[in-house]
C-alpha cells in the first residue's frame, strides 16, 4: 500500500460523507415539497431556486442557536447521545456500493466507503446501535416525555429489527443461488443481480423475494422512526419525543441522523432488492464518462424511488396506535418473514439438491 492507495481510501470515505450530506440537504427539501404537493400547498420556495437552499438556511440557523441545557440532565450522556445518533447513520452507508468500480491510475477503485465482506451484518449492527442514541437521549434528558419516547424507541426497534433481519436473511440465502455465490458483502450481492430473466425483466431480487421486500420496507420505515411508525417523536402525544430537551446544533444532529438513516436504509433496499447500481450503461455506444456515471445514476434513481414512497406514505397514513404497532410487528411481519424464509429455503434447496426422494 503506497500513498496513492491511501489517497484513494480517503477520497472514497470523503465521497460517501459528502454524498450523504448533500442528499440529506436535498431530502429534507424534497420531503417538504412532496408533502406540500400532496396537501395542495407550495412548500418551501423562498431560499434559493425552488427553495432548494431552505435546508441550508435552517441548518445555519440551528448552528447559531443557543444550546439550552436543562437543569436535570445527565450531562455526559446528554451531550453524547446526538453524536451516537450521527456516527452510526454515517457508518451505515459506508458499506453500500453506489456505483460501478472505476479504474483510476491503473487501480480498480470500488465506489463504496469500505469493501466489507460482512457488509450485511455490519449494517444490522449499526442500525441497532442507532437505537442507543434515542434511548440515551430519552433517559438523560431527565424529563418524562423524552423518557416515554425513549422507551417506545426500544420496544419498536427490538420488534422491527427482528423482521428486518429475517427479511434480509431470505435475500442473502437466495443470493447464494445466483452467479455471484453466497456472500454477505453488498458488492457481491449487487453483482449477483446483474443480467435479465427472460430478456427484459432485470434479475432483481425484488421479483423472487417480493414478500421479503414488503417486510423489509415496512421494517425500515419503523427502523428510521418515520410516519406512520413515528411514535418515538409523536408530537401530539410526547411534545417532541426523545429530542424534546434538545436545541440548536444537538437537535440538528438528530435531524441529520434521521435523514441519513432514511437515505442509507433506502440505499440498502435498492441494493438488496432493486439490483443496486445495475442498469444499462451503453458501454462503447456512449462516451466513457457517461458509462461511468450511469451506474451511480441508476443507484440514486432506485434509492429515490424508495425514498419517495417513504414521503408518500408519510403524507397518507395516520400514526399507528401503540398496540397496533406491536401487533403489526409481532403478529404480522415476523410470522410472514419466518414463513417466507422457510418457503424460500425449501425452494432453494429443491432447486439445488433436488427432491429428497429423487
Amino acid at each position: 500500500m503506497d500513498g496513492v492507495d491511501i489517497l484513494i481510501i480517503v477520497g472514497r470515505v470523503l465521497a460517501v460523507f459528502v454524498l450523504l450530506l448533500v442528499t440529506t440537504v436535498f431530502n429534507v427539501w424534497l420531503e417538504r415539497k412532496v408533502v406540500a404537493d400532496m396537501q395542495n400547498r407550495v412548500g418551501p420556495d423562498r431560499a434559493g431556486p425552488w427553495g432548494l437552499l431552505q435546508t441550508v438556511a435552517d441548518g445555519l440557523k440551528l448552528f447559531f442557536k443557543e444550546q439550552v441545557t436543562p437543569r436535570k440532565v445527565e450531562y455526559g450522556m446528554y451531550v453524547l447521545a446526538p453524536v451516537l445518533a450521527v456516527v452510526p447513520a454515517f457508518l451505515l452507508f459506508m458499506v453500500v456500493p453506489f456505483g460501478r468500480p472505476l479504474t483510476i491510475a491503473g487501480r480498480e477503485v470500488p465506489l463504496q466507503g469500505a469493501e466489507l465482506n460482512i457488509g450485511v451484518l455490519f449494517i444490522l449492527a449499526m442500525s441497532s446501535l442507532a437505537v442507543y442514541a434515542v434511548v440515551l437521549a430519552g433517559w438523560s434528558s431527565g424529563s418524562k416525555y423524552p423518557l416515554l419516547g425513549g422507551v417506545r424507541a426500544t420496544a419498536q426497534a427490538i420488534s422491527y429489527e427482528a423482521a428486518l433481519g429475517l427479511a434480509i436473511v431470505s435475500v442473502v440465502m437466495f443470493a447464494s443461488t445466483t452467479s455471484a455465490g453466497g456472500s454477505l458483502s453488498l458488492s457481491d450481492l449487487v453483482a449477483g443481480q446483474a443480467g435479465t430473466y427472460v430478456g427484459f425483466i432485470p434479475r432483481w431480487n425484488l421479483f423472487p423475494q417480493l414478500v421479503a421486500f414488503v417486510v423489509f420496507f415496512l421494517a425500515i420505515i419503523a427502523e428510521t422512526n418515520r410516519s406512520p411508525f413515528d411514535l418515538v417523536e409523536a408530537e401530539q402525544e410526547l411534545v417532541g419525543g426523545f429530542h424534546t430537551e434538545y436545541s440548536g446544533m444537538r437537535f440538528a444532529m438528530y435531524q441529520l441522523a434521521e435523514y441519513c438513516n432514511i437515505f442509507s436504509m433506502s440505499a440498502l433496499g435498492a441494493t438488496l432488492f432493486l439490483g443496486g447500481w445495475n442498469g444499462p450503461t451503453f458501454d462503447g455506444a456512449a462516451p466513457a464518462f457517461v458509462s461511468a456515471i450511469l451506474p451511480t445514476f441508476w443507484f440514486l434513481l432506485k434509492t429515490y424511488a424508495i425514498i419517495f414512497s417513504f414521503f408518500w406514505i408519510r403524507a397518507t397514513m395516520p400514526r399507528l396506535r401503540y398496540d397496533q404497532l406491536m401487533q403489526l410487528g409481532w403478529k404480522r411481519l415476523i410470522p410472514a418473514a419466518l414463513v417466507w424464509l422457510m418457503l424460500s429455503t425449501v425452494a432453494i434447496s429443491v432447486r439445488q439438491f433436488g427432491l429428497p426422494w429423487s
Partner: protein
Amino acid sequence: MAGGFGAFLKGLAVTGKVMVDTVLGDGLVTTKYPEEYRPKPQRFHGRHVLNRYPDGMEKCIGCELCAGACPARCIYVRGLDNPPENPVSPGERYGFVYEINMLRCIFCGLCVEACPTEAITMTHLFEMSTSKRDDAIYTKRELLMESDGKVPHMFPDDPLARMSELDTADGWLRATAPNGVAAYEGVQAWQGTPGPASWAAEPSQDERDA
C-alpha cells in the same frame, strides 16, 4: 388494521392524485402573497382615512362620536373651535387631535357608521405591521388625506406598500344620504373612492318612486 391493504392503497391513490393535481393542474390553493394579491371584497375593512371636502376643508367636526362608538376604545379625538378667520372644517369645531391605535382596532367599522359627516372611512390597505409599538398609533398626520385627495402612507418606502390600496374605499353601505334627509332612507350609495365627496347626488326616494 381495519380496512387492510386495499384501504392503504386507496389512501395512497388519494394523495397521489392530489400531488398530480397540484403539480400539473389547478390543485394549488396557496397564493404567493407578496408577489400575488388576491382581489379583496368590495367592503373590505382596512386602514382608516380622514376625508376632506372638495374645497379642501376637513370633514371631521371633532364630535367624538367615533370614539364613543368604538368598542375597542382605540380612537382618541379632541375637538377645538374653528378659528373664525381661517376655519379648518365647515362646522363649529374641528378635530384638533385624532389618533387611532391600530394595535387595538378590531376594524369593525362602527366609527365609519357613527360619523355624521363621513369624515372617517376605511380603505383596502391592511399591511400595517410595524417594528415599534409607537408606530402603530396613527395620528392626524398619517390619517388625514392631502387636499388633492392623496392619502399618506405610514411607510411609503416599504416593499409591501401598495398605494393603490389606499385609494380604494371600503364602500360602506349608507342607510341614508350624506345630508341625512329621511327621503333618502334605504337608498344605497356606494362611494368608490375615499376623498372629496364629488359624486353626483342621488335622486330622493320620492323622485325615484314617481
